[in-house]
C-alpha cells in the first residue's frame, strides 16, 4: 500500500494495512465509508474546488476525501465534464481550480468593482436628506453643525442617491435636496417614509441613549414625549 505524502494529516491514523477498511458501510460517518464510487468522488471534488478560495493540490484534495479515493482519476473525469463549458477545470502550478472560461472574461467586467465605505460626512448628509427631505444645504449644515462641502453633495448626486428638489419659496430661493429611487433601491426601502423614526431607532438599540460620561440620569418621560412629537412631525405628510 502506498502512502500518499500529505502535509495536512498529522493527527490522522496512518492506515495500517490490517485496520478499518473492510467496507464497513456506515452512513453518517464519512471516513468509515467504503470508497465512494468514482461518480461520487467527482461530485465531491467538484464541490470542494467550487467552495475553495484557493487552488488545491492533489494532496490537499486527497486529505479532504474519504480514504481510498482516487482524486487523480476523478479529476480527469471532472476536467472532461467541464471541457467547453462556461467554467473550466484548470491546473494552476501543481494545484487545481475551477475558473471561468477564458473566452468569457468580458462577461465578468461588472464584477470588478471596488466597494468603499462612504465618508462620515457623506453618510450623515445623506441621512439628513433622507429624514428631512426636501432640505436645503443651509438646513443640513444647521443639523450637522458643520459646513457641507461641495464635494460631498456632488458625490451623493453622482451616486444618484440624491437629486435636486423644488426650490424653497424663501428669500434667495435655495435649492432643496431629496432622495432618489436609486437610494430607495440601494437601501432596500419601499419609501423614504419607511425609515425608522427616532423612537424606533432607540428601541432597536441603534440610538444609544446613555448620556456622555460625567452626566448622570436618563432623559425623563417628558423628554421621551417630546421625542415622539418630533418624530410624528417628521413623518406626517
Amino acid at each position: 500500500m502506498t502512502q500518499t505524502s500529505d502535509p495536512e494529516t498529522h493527527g490522522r491514523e496512518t492506515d495500517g494495512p490490517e485496520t478499518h477498511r473492510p467496507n464497513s458501510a456506515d452512513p453518517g460517518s464519512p471516513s468509515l465509508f467504503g470508497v465512494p464510487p468514482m461518480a461520487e468522488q467527482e461530485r465531491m471534488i467538484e464541490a470542494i474546488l467550487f467552495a475553495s478560495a484557493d487552488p488545491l493540490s492533489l494532496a490537499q484534495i486527497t486529505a479532504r476525501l474519504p480514504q481510498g479515493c482516487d482524486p487523480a482519476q476523478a479529476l480527469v473525469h471532472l476536467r472532461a465534464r467541464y471541457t467547453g463549458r462556461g467554467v473550466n477545470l484548470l491546473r494552476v502550478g501543481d494545484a487545481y481550480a475551477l475558473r471561468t472560461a477564458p473566452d468569457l472574461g468580458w462577461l465578468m467586467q461588472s464584477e470588478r468593482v471596488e466597494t468603499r465605505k462612504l465618508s462620515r460626512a457623506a453618510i450623515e448628509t445623506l441621512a439628513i436628506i433622507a429624514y428631512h427631505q426636501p432640505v436645503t444645504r443651509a438646513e443640513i449644515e444647521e443639523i450637522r453643525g458643520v459646513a457641507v462641502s461641495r464635494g460631498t453633495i456632488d458625490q451623493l448626486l453622482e451616486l444618484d442617491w440624491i437629486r435636486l428638489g423644488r426650490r424653497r419659496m424663501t428669500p434667495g430661493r435655495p435649492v432643496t435636496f431629496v432622495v432618489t429611487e436609486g437610494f430607495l433601491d440601494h437601501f432596500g426601502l419601499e419609501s423614504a417614509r419607511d425609515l425608522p423614526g427616532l423612537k424606533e431607532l432607540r428601541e432597536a438599540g441603534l440610538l444609544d441613549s446613555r448620556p456622555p460620561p460625567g452626566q448622570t440620569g436618563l432623559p425623563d418621560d417628558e423628554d421621551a414625549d417630546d421625542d415622539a412629537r418630533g418624530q410624528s412631525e417628521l413623518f406626517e405628510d
Partner: protein
Amino acid sequence: MADDFDTDSDISTRRAAEALIVDVDGFEGPLDLLLTLSRTQKVDLRRISVLDLAEQYLGFVAQARALRIELAADYLVMAAWLAYLKSRLLLPPDPQEEGPTGAELAAHLAFQLERLQAMREAAARLMGRDQKGRDFFARGAPDTLSVARKTQYDASLLDLMRAYARLRTRDEFRPYAFDRTDIYPYEAALERLKHLMPGAAEWTSLQACLPAEWRNAPGRKRSAIASTFAATLELAKQGEIELRQADTFAPLHLRRRPGQ
C-alpha cells in the same frame, strides 16, 4: 398557600415547581411560563384547560411570593388578568355585562399559546435546515478576474440609521450640558452633610439640610434633595447617622448617631 406548599407530599411536583421558580429568569415572559406550565397537562394545546392553567400560574406566583422571589411586573399583570379570567370562567355569565365572555377570553389565550408553540417549532425547523456556510457553500473565490478599478461607494441602511441616530443624539444631549449648572453634585452633598452632622444631635428633617440657595427653584431643589438623600444613605451605611421616617412618603429625619 405557603402551608399547602410545605405539606405537599408530592415531592417531585414540588421540586418541579421550585425549579420553575428558581429558573424564572430563564423564562421569556409570562406567556412562555404559561406554555411551560401547560405541558404538565399532557394534552393537545387545543384541548387545554385554561382554568387549570390559570390556577397553576396563580399558584406559581403565590409560591414565588412566599419564597420572596421578585417577579417582573409583566408576570404580575398576567396574574391579575388570569385571576380575572378565572372569575369570569367560574361565575355564571352576567347578561348585563358588556364585553367578551370568559370562554372567549380563554379561547384567545389558548390560541396565543398554540401560536407561540407553533412559532417555536417553526423556528426550530428553520434552524434545522441546511444553512449556507455550514451545510452548503457559495463560490469560494468570487471575482477571480479582478482587474478593473471602478470604485463603488457603499453604505448599508444600518450605517445610514446609525449616522442619523448619532446626529440626533448629539442634539438631544445639547440641552443637558446647560442643565449641569443646576445639578447639585453628590460629592458636595456628602461633604456638606459630614460638616453639618456633628451638630445634629436632634432629629432634623432632610429638607432642613439643603443648602439655602438650592431650596427655591423646583429643578434645583429636586437635584439637591436627590443628592442629599443619597448622601444620607451613605453616611447611614457608614454608621455616622441614623435615619427615621414615620410612614411611607413621610418626611425623612436624620441625626448624628448617639455616641458618635
